[in-house]
């Protein structure tokens, strides 16, 4: 599509590295407040939820002196598009792993972008197959709207409204060499 580049508006920076760090510290502070008297565990949704969970755990540790346990959720085996035969299958990028008991746990799910809500739905089903947590909450960096399921974040960095053709690029030093959140608009229609 030769015209696509010409019609595509430039990317906007939604969060700089500093804003991202501030956001994660703020989320950590609110998680501590929200868990008075309860031990919290973090489950990062792969791939970018995991490094975010690691950083939130760092911040919680530096503020409260206690480091929460962390795990990773792949959610692949519970995705509704796969079960419906609507996903092209290639090698999985990561695997669910955590070494704590979810029975009675106070869990905070961590993901980068909240969009349709279907990944979170899959994550909830996956966790429930391991046991019965006392509570599950959700922390997200960006809520881009366009929900297809009744799901919302309990701890949120930034809410914006987007079009389905837009792309939110969450770049993290651990995976991408730098910290930034960009809105890359899709080609303008018409």
């Amino acid at each position, binding site marked *: 599509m030769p015209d696509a580049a010409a019609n595509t508006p430039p990317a906007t920076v939604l969060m700089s590295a500093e804003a991202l760090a501030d956001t994660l510290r703020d989320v950590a502070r609110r998680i501590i407040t929200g868990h008075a008297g309860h031990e919290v565990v973090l489950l990062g949704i792969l791939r970018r939820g995991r490094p975010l969970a690691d950083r939130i755990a760092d911040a919680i540790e530096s503020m409260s002196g206690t480091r929460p346990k962390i795990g990773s959720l*792949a959610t*692949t*085996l*519970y995705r509704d598009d*796969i*079960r419906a*035969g*609507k*996903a*092209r*299958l*290639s*090698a*999985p*990028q990561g*695997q*669910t*792993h955590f070494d704590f*008991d*979810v*029975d009675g746990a106070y869990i905070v799910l961590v993901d980068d972008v909240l969009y349709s809500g279907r990944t979170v739905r899959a994550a909830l*089903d996956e966790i429930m*197959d*391991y*046991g019965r947590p006392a509570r599950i909450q959700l922390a997200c960096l960006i809520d881009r709207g366009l929900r297809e399921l009744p799901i919302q974040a309990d701890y949120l960095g930034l809410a914006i409204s987007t079009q389905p053709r837009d792309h939110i690029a969450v770049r993290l030093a651990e995976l991408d060499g730098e910290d930034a959140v960009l809105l890359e608009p899709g080609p303008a229609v018409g």
Partner: protein
Amino acid sequence: MAVANAVEWTRRHLIGLEDLSREEIELVLDTAPQFLAVQQRESGIKKVPLLQGRLVVNLFLEPSTRTRVSFELAAKRLSADTLTFTSANSSAVKGESLHDTLANIEAMHSDIVIIRSGFAGAAAILARRHRSHIINAGDGAHEHPTQALLDAFTIRQHVRARRDDPEATLDGLRVAIIGDIANSRVARSNIWGLTKLGAHVTVCGPRTMMPPHIERMGVEVTSDLREALVGADVVYALRIQLERQATGAFPSLREYIRLFRVDNDSLKVAPRHALIMHPGPINRDIELAADVADGPRSVILEQVSNGVAVRMAVMHLLANSASVAPEGPL
């Protein structure tokens, strides 16, 4: 970071490893670990909903317990419903043709049919005429692809652990397959699979058990067990079909044991890290010494555990990938 295997699964059936590319074989192996983890869950539900509401039919026209049970468990761990037809109770004994049998199974809306048959080519013939995903669970002396996939998976896991490299491949690995090569679909599928994955395969057995022109499959051939075992990273003993003694292709059992049994004595020339494998069921102290089968190098029971995960991966890929054409070629 290594480049991820980006190939997509596009096949409707699994007939043999001869058909698959290296990338496709690796995709199955890469898909299996998550299913191994499902079985190893310490709490909660040891299954996932990927084939919920789908019907998986085992059609076993030859005696087999472990392969049938392995497929059945794999289907159940994917939340599928399962039915099993075995030769003893199937209408095959009443003279019904294979096509009619499968047409009747499909009338019950099967999604995946797993077929074990004594006839080479049975699975491929059914795949051309029927709508279900067909998985070959052994057809005569032709192929037994899921056995070779679980073997390659088991080998790869150990190579990765030994080298402390999560990306390690089978390239350059030396595998010795010992026994009745001519009548072994396990050997044939393993030769296809292992050579595609870059391993160096040597087959070893009595001349009477060696198919003509086997070297054209890219393997080395020897009738000297010692030669096969020198430098072998993997020693794979095949089951000797004792019922074949009557056919004359077989030397005396005593002679087979003396020349070809894998035991601590013959293994002296193999490296200390060599893995001992067998597709089961074992004739103890015939093709494989009992103390070796039970010894520290043996991974025979891991093959069984891995088999369920690998078969889950195969069923999931065949039945769930959006890149699989609803109709069309194998």
